[in-house]
């Protein structure tokens, strides 16, 4: 469940509030549940950032597939 969308943190404000960019669309979201810096990516659900997204891990999904598939080839 749970629609959640990735976004980049582009501003931090007082009171656990941040501004994120979903892609040509900016919105204020709550940062109560994560510790993030400007420039980092988060997953936003019901107006709250619920987790940081790791760019490196994201890129490595392809690697993950390669690993999985390579393992199978054997």
């Amino acid at each position, binding site marked *: *469940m*749970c*629609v*959640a969308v990735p976004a980049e943190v582009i501003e931090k404000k007082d009171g656990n509030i941040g501004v994120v960019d979903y892609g040509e669309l900016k919105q204020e979201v*709550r940062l*109560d*549940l*994560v*510790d993030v810096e400007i420039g980092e990516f988060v*997953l936003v*659900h*019901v*107006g*709250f950032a*619920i*987790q940081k*997204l*790791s*760019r490196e*891990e*994201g890129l*490595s*999904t*392809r690697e*993950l*597939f*390669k690993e*999985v*598939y390579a*393992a*199978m080839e054997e």
Partner: protein
Amino acid sequence: MATGDELKAALHDLVDRDYTFMHICGTHEAAIARTGLRSVLPEGLKIVMGPGCPVCITPQGEIDAALKFVEKGCIVATYGDLLRVPGTKGSLESSGGDVRVVQGIHKAVEIAEKTPDKEVVFISVGFETTAPTVAATILARPPENFSILSCHRLVPPAMQWLLEQGEASLDGFLLPGHVCVVTGYEEYEQFPVPQVVAGFEAEDILLGLLMLVKQVKEGRHEVENAYPRAVCREGNRKAMDLMYEVFEPVDVEWRGFPVIPKSGLKLRPEFRQYDALEKFGIEIKHVEKHSGCICDQVLRGVAQPTDCKLFGKVCTPRTPVGPCMVSHEGACKIWNLYHVRHL
């Protein structure tokens, strides 16, 4: 990310017999339907749906309670998803009351702050993904005219109940990516079945399926992570801690299911002032399901919507009989929209 074509090819290479996996996430079902993903799977590979839609599994009694707050003249704030879910007497949308669609609980609190002379009740549904956002908000002590109807549910107790039934011959589970973002997946390691945490792009799901098939073929049953850019084993500890600071687990009924032990969330005593049920002296009543509806079996993966005699006839998205035909993430509704019409 791996390309879809590579993933599809790999799956077709690998699948040599029938496999049935269950996802327990309405957003997975929505993504599968939206991307036409089933149409690219090798024959024999089936994905069935579990009780993964928080709207579907909210019992009718809780919707009736929400309507009672409308009757009492409260401003009722909630997610759009709940608007059209029928209670015993109509839905929030057709109630004629002051019902506001909000993005999240913090917006409901803003409404309470702006209308101090009105009671604002937030109908709070959702799994572990959502409950921490509610907890964080309650901890900030919203104004006195604000309260919530907690309809939250936890995933692992339901999964345990399903496994104990042992009805569905499942080869494994696609774990709900966004729940695991918060909870991590350590808790799922107790279950002796193949499980993979998956994200919500078509490629994420294909990768998850691939990893599940591989586990089965290799005779393993463990929890693997196909969504590492968002999920780690420990999840978001901060979010989980907040959740348990504010809520405590409670035995609760799921729509189409019996009472599942420790599967709900109740406000802890120190936050009871925000409990709308206590504040307005309202009790949740159990409402008997329509006799013909086999939603419980659908949600447990032992039946498909098309197995239901009511499906598409008496029960349609416009005249839903069971919970699965209600929500945008409901199995029967999604099947009605994407699978049945012309195929």
